[in-house]
């Protein structure tokens, strides 16, 4: 016990003395939490649209007003020829072209179904998809309004089905509410795997592990002395992120039980520290450890549902996402913070995290024994 406490003291002394590492641990998370949720917003504004209006009627003007008034679109071209409008797409000035056919309003007035033509510049897929979706909903709205008008004027009253949605757990659809818990998970992951792996490999690279290995110091004391500091730092970083930035800046109040949340963070960190230890047993230099950890972090983070929903991935990559510890942790944090899920709701997640903790740590310890 005395040895362990002394090892911890030494480790913290070294961490706090490292002028390069300290900002990485404490300042970077805060900056990330301040920047990412505000910048990484899925709502796309300022989509450039060109409109080819062959009709030039009140209905077509109404449609154009609705499009421009929605706030999502910027009218960059108003033209009478599709070919000319298409040049705008070619020169990347327009993302979308909407072509309104001649006799559009007349046909609608006569009750004939009408078709509008929509050309999408799909180079930026997200922008094109969302733009087309926004535009479709505006046109649909116009359609149903026209029907309503007609019904009112003709006096025949048959009701239409109206869909109204409300956003549960995040009523104002505040994007930060969704992103902050996810980015918190990312930060805990970085501290756990990245810093832990680098720290252990540093002892190898500098040669101090050689000197340590000839002392009667016990292996498990040494490993605990390496893992515990980052376990503590991970929890501290999470706390700063959740309360200082999450609550202080974004006003996010965790809805669930704080103890359950912290128990999950503690458990998840054990799993990730195991991964860090595992990587360190396979690397000889900090550079190697960094490259390997970077590879895993990229895959883990992009396949975790942090930025893109897992449900919309192809099946094979859903399997990758499902065998990714980060996925479960992000879900747990979002469920707890936004929805207030208790332990019984996240039993499966906890089980998976326990599995990962045992899996990574036993593999790491087996390999650590073999190599030294």
């Amino acid at each position, binding site marked *: 016990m005395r040895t362990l406490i002394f*090892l911890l003291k030494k480790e913290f002394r070294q961490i706090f003395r490292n002028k390069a590492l300290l900002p990485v641990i404490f300042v970077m998370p805060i900056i990330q939490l301040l920047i990412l949720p505000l910048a990484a917003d899925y709502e796309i504004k300022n989509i450039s649209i060109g409109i080819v209006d062959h009709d030039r009627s009140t209905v077509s003007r109404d449609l154009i007003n609705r499009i421009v008034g929605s706030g999502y679109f910027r009218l960059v071209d108003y033209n009478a020829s599709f070919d000319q409008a298409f040049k705008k797409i070619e020169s990347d000035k327009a993302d979308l072209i909407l072509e309104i056919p001649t006799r559009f309003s007349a046909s609608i007035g006569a009750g004939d179904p009408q078709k509008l033509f929509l050309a999408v510049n799909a180079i930026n897929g997200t922008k094109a998809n969302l733009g087309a979706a926004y535009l479709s909903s505006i046109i649909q709205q116009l359609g149903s309004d026209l029907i309503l008008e007609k019904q009112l004027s003709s006096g025949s009253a048959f009701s239409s089905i109206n869909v109204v949605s409300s956003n549960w757990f995040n009523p104002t659809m505040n994007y930060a509410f969704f992103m902050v818990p996810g980015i918190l998970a990312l930060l805990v992951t970085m501290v756990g795997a990245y810093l832990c792996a680098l720290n252990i490999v540093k002892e190898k690279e*500098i040669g101090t592990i050689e000197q340590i290995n000839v*002392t*009667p110091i016990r292996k498990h004391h040494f490993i605990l002395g390496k893992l515990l500091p980052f376990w503590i730092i991970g929890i501290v970083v999470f706390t700063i992120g959740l309360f200082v930035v999450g609550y202080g800046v974004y006003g996010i109040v965790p809805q669930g039980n704080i103890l359950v949340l912290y128990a999950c963070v503690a458990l998840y960190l054990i799993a990730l520290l195991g991964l860090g230890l595992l990587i360190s047993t396979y690397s000889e230099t900090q550079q190697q450890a960094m490259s390997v950890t970077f590879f895993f972090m990229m895959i883990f983070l992009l396949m975790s549902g942090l930025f893109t929903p897992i449900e919309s991935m192809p099946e094979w990559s859903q399997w990758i996402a499902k065998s990714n510890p980060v996925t479960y942790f992000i879900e747990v944090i979002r469920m707890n913070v936004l929805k207030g899920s208790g332990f019984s709701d996240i039993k499966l997640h906890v089980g998976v995290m326990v599995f990962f903790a045992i899996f990574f740590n036993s593999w790491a310890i087996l390999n650590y024994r073999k190599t030294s």
Partner: protein
Amino acid sequence: MVDVKVQNVSKSYEKGKVLALNEVSFEVEKGELFGLIGPDGAGKTSLFRILTTLIDFDQGEASVLSFDVNKDLKKIRKEVGYMPGRFSLYQDLTVEENLEFFATIFNTSIEENYDLVREIYVQIEPFKDRKAGKLSGGMKQKLALCCALIHRPKVLFLDEPTTGVDTVSRKEFWEMLKRLKEQEITILVSTPYMDEAMLCERIALIQHGSIMSIDSPKGIISKYPDPLYGIKSADMSRLLRLLQDQERVKSANSFGEYHHVSLVEPDSANMDRLLDSLRMEGLEQLEMKPIKPSIEDCFIHLMKEQHGETSH
């Protein structure tokens, strides 16, 4: 009492492709200052790493303080001090913190064994709040020695402690080792510097993983078979080329100021004839005198002998 015992130890790397140690055997008595002398790549570090329980070996037996290095790792680790060839202390901890760290993990304190390291530690004490990484080479080496001694080890392993250290610090270091000997600490030291061999009580000359000879430095020198001459002239490189072509010359090697030469028939008549023929070649300021062989001469002689044996 025998403190370190190595019997027929062999060690290879890369699945047997590289033979680092080839059936090495030697013994070190309690309180002895024993030197392993050999060039880089001779297998010195592998041997040290085996004896300090850091690596396994392929065959043979090795024990330290009568503990088997394969079985009683923990007992050995409590009793030995090891100073690796590369500076392996925490560069971001201060001098004092490093020493305290190693004292604590050996379950002792600086105060308890201060008498043992005092003489060395007082030299670095003025810098005790300086980070170890910021020390000069000689200081680093003194700190490393303090850290290896702070738990009062019975056997001390020093792997090339003087490599990369200036001449003055090297001399000081060997004086420290002599004083440690008075404390009855068995010391195994390796070095590529032949001049340091004279400072050990017994030495083993090691080359390509095999020990060529074990004896006291004087004993090794007395075994040198031929009378040896030092020869110099104004043009040393031409002289060496000419010497190596002479039939009368058994061996000629470059050694700083003089070339060391042994003759096939070492008598004064032969010596005169050699000088005459060299003068005929136009060499000026020729000077030749009998000299005592050094450890380096013995090493080169043994190396050639062994090489001759293996090439037949």
